[in-house]
């Protein structure tokens, strides 16, 4: 039997970082292939290449024996590939029927007039198929998340595809809806439709698939019939071992629990005043207090649930979780960018009442966001302007706001050296012109200038090369050794294991596990992040 779809040596890099390496995989017709892998293993990139959103750097694809080189989503649709995405791609302001037939409305003869009756009957047929009892003219915005997912599937089916790809289709479904969805998948499978199913819920993948493929760091590490796999083997395969990454060594032990602080130096008031003048946030460094940051019962419905933890001075605390586990949302709530409904956040025992970024900064917090392009940098502004923004207030005379250009330039110069920004870039060059690694140094630099006591980092090394990564890790540890508490959110387990003193594991908005450095165990962490109940 010849393969329906074949990947042949697919390789893809983003700015020098390989995300897919030589993927070769054949998919037989009528087969349901389950695909698993950690965040960043390359699943989405592979799907994007298949769907024509990205082009591979090397390798080729064949579809029913013929060359297949899509240049856009329309090419994928033309050969009969349909996608059901995790993020819903529906127009909420349109009806179900309009969403289904948006790109190919049935017409009245050759006139450019929509045949509404045909839309309604066709839509009703597909809705029956997926088991959704809503009239075709219902607006999508009035449907629940689960119902929308069914509409998404109906849309995929209505294009009469040969291959459907499901990317985490059950994340927004309730339990009953998930059961319905699985029954639908069984029906489609019985009918001989070829499917690729991607999910973090390993039990589901095992139950629904005929074959499994495991990706790790952009490499296909295993591919075979379902009988060869069980949950344990999948986790082991997904975790693997990676040796190409080194982590800087810790110089000093952090202050953990009730042990005496390593360095409890009394603060010299003169020195404190100097620091205050320089740091901009007006924070006088306090002696190490325990805990530095305390979070109790933090809750926001549907986002985070009853989160409690402590962060001590000098400690590097990691937060691990899969996509959608609520990690970044937790950070945003801590920094006052999003509201919370219950619980408390306090720094050195003083609660932050209705925190806002300006308050949090004044309390000595800093938050390096996940996306440097979206909310980390002003890309058109210069390197100096970006570096100085957070601490600008400390260089301004109060009242008039007149900036002291001498101290400002000195601060920029010192932080440029500290984060080892490329010396070839001038201070007034737009940040846009820098490479990803150097842009990240600018973002980190602007926060380090504030000398934060609580440093929250969300994916601090995303999309940058290994060398820059190592140096950024060094800077993070230096900050911790200077007495700050660091909270790192990362999708890369290696990064957390290499850097942290303690790791918290989140799943579906809840803290499900906590491990201290001596008990770090990759399998246990992943299991906790993946499973319904944490394996203890």
């Amino acid at each position, binding site marked *: 039997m010849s393969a329906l779809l074949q990947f042949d040596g697919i390789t893809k890099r983003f700015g020098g970082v390989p995300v897919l390496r030589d993927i070769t995989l054949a998919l037989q017709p009528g087969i349901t292939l389950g695909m698993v892998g950690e965040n960043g293993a390359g699943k989405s990139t592979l799907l994007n290449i298949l769907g024509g959103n990205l082009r591979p750097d090397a390798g080729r694809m064949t579809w029913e024996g013929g060359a297949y080189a899509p240049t856009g989503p329309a090419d994928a649709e033309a050969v009969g590939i349909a996608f059901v995405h995790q993020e819903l791609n529906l127009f909420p302001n349109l009806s179900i029927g309009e969403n289904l037939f948006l790109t190919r409305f049935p017409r009245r003869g050759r006139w450019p007039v929509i045949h509404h009756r045909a839309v309604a009957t066709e839509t009703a047929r597909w809705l029956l198929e997926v088991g959704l009892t809503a009239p075709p003219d219902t607006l999508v915005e009035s449907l629940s998340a689960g119902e929308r997912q069914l509409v998404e599937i109906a849309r995929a089916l209505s294009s009469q595809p040969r291959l459907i790809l499901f990317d985490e289709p059950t994340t927004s479904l309730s339990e009953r809806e998930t059961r319905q969805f699985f029954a639908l998948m069984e029906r489609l499978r019985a009918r001989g439709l070829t499917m690729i199913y991607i999910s973090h819920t390993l039990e589901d993948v095992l139950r629904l698939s005929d074959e499994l493929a495991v990706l790790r760091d952009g490499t296909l590490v295993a591919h075979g019939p379902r009988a060869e796999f069980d949950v344990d083997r999948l986790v082991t395969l997904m975790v693997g071992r990676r040796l190409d990454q080194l982590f800087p060594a810790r110089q000093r032990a952090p202050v953990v629990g009730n042990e005496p602080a390593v360095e409890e130096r009394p603060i010299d008031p003169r020195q404190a005043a100097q620091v205050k003048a320089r740091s901009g946030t007006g924070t006088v460094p306090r002696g190490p207090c325990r805990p530095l940051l305390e979070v109790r019962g933090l809750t926001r419905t549907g986002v985070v649930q009853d989160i409690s933890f402590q962060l001590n001075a000098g400690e590097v605390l990691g937060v691990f979780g899969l996509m959608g586990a609520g990690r970044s949302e937790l950070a945003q709530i801590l920094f006052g960018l999003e509201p919370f409904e219950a619980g408390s956040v306090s720094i050195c025992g003083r609660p932050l009442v209705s925190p806002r970024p300006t308050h949090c900064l004044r309390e000595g917090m800093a938050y390096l966001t996940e996306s440097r392009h979206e909310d980390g*940098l002003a890309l058109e*502004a210069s390197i100096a302007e970006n570096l100085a923004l957070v601490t600008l207030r400390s260089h301004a005379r109060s009242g008039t706001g007149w900036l002291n250009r001498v101290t400002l330039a000195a601060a920029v110069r010192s932080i440029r050296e500290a984060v080892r920004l490329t010396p070839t870039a001038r201070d007034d060059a737009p940040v846009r*012109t820098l490479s990803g690694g150097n842009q990240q140094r600018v973002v980190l630099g602007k926060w380090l200038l504030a000398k934060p006591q609580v440093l929250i980092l969300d994916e601090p090394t995303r999309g940058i090369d290994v060398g820059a990564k190592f140096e950024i890790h060094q800077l993070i540890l230096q900050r911790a050794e200077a007495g700050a508490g660091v909270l790192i959110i990362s999708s890369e387990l290696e990064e957390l294991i290499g850097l942290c003193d303690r790791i918290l594991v989140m799943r579906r908005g809840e803290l499900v596990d906590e491990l201290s450095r001596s008990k770090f165990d990759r399998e246990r962490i992943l299991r906790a992040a993946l499973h319904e109940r944490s394996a203890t």
Partner: protein
Amino acid sequence: MTTYNEPPTTNHEPRTRELAIRWLESEHLVFVFTAVGFLVLWPVTPGLVTRQNLSNVLLTLLPLLVLACGQTVVLITGGIDLSACAIMAVTSVVGGLAMNGDTGWLAGSVWAVPIGLLLMVGVGLAIGAFNGFSVAVLRMPPFMVTLTGMMFFGGLATWLTRSETIYNLPSAFNALGGCLPLVATLAFGLALVVHMLLSRTLYGRWFYAVGQNTRMARVSGVPVSAVTFGAYVLSGLLAAAAAILYTGQAETASPFLGQRLLLDVIAATVIGGTSLFGGRGKVVWTVYGVLFIKLLDNSLNLLNCTYFTVTMVKGAAVLAAALLDATRRRWLEVGT
């Protein structure tokens, strides 16, 4: 998932585009244009270079500059103030009603001028604060707030005076707008203050940060709402200042003051190079833009073009400037 594209560094861009971008970004381009235009028009335009004409042009140019400085600040924060000219009209009328020698509330009082001025400034600040509150706190779109503001306050000015102009203003007040050295000092002084505010102070940097990337600014501890509010208040204040100059110059307070000025204000600012997308702009550029638009206006008038022709040409010039802004942005985006 790491679907992350590293932006290519600039040296990967083709050289021609690099040169084109540099040319488009040159901040003195508009000034060069204006200067060359002036030299070309000099011999062919009768009466362009006469003492009388130049001082007239300067007298109307200076209040426009003040008004455009306010617009520059608002545009830098990523907003727009369409109500600036309506603020001017209300301010002018209120000043007139207070100070005129016939029926004015303060007629005859020695304090008429100072109180009248304070009143005018107060009205400008209040309307600016209203705009700022609507945009920054109620999060209404600036376009909507100031467009309706333009209608409402424009109407209010007409209603207050029953559509009549007010004469017989105190001569001390008229001197403020009519004496060229005084007007020049005031206008350039205000422009200099705004220039310093933008380029040398904390608040200036905050205006730019909010316009460049609002979310980034918020995360970085910039008090975004206060900064946005401040931009509209400043625009209101400068509109009041411009109203004082214009009213004094005309020696009459009129609800129709500045009715045809909105296009000039936006045109001068945008032609100068201040971006309609926010985050980019300078007072110096606005000075160039004001010079350009005034040269266009005056020379076309002297060449006996009708008001409508002048408007058409101005409209085309603004469109060209907006196209330049959008082109620059598009190219930069491709490079990212």
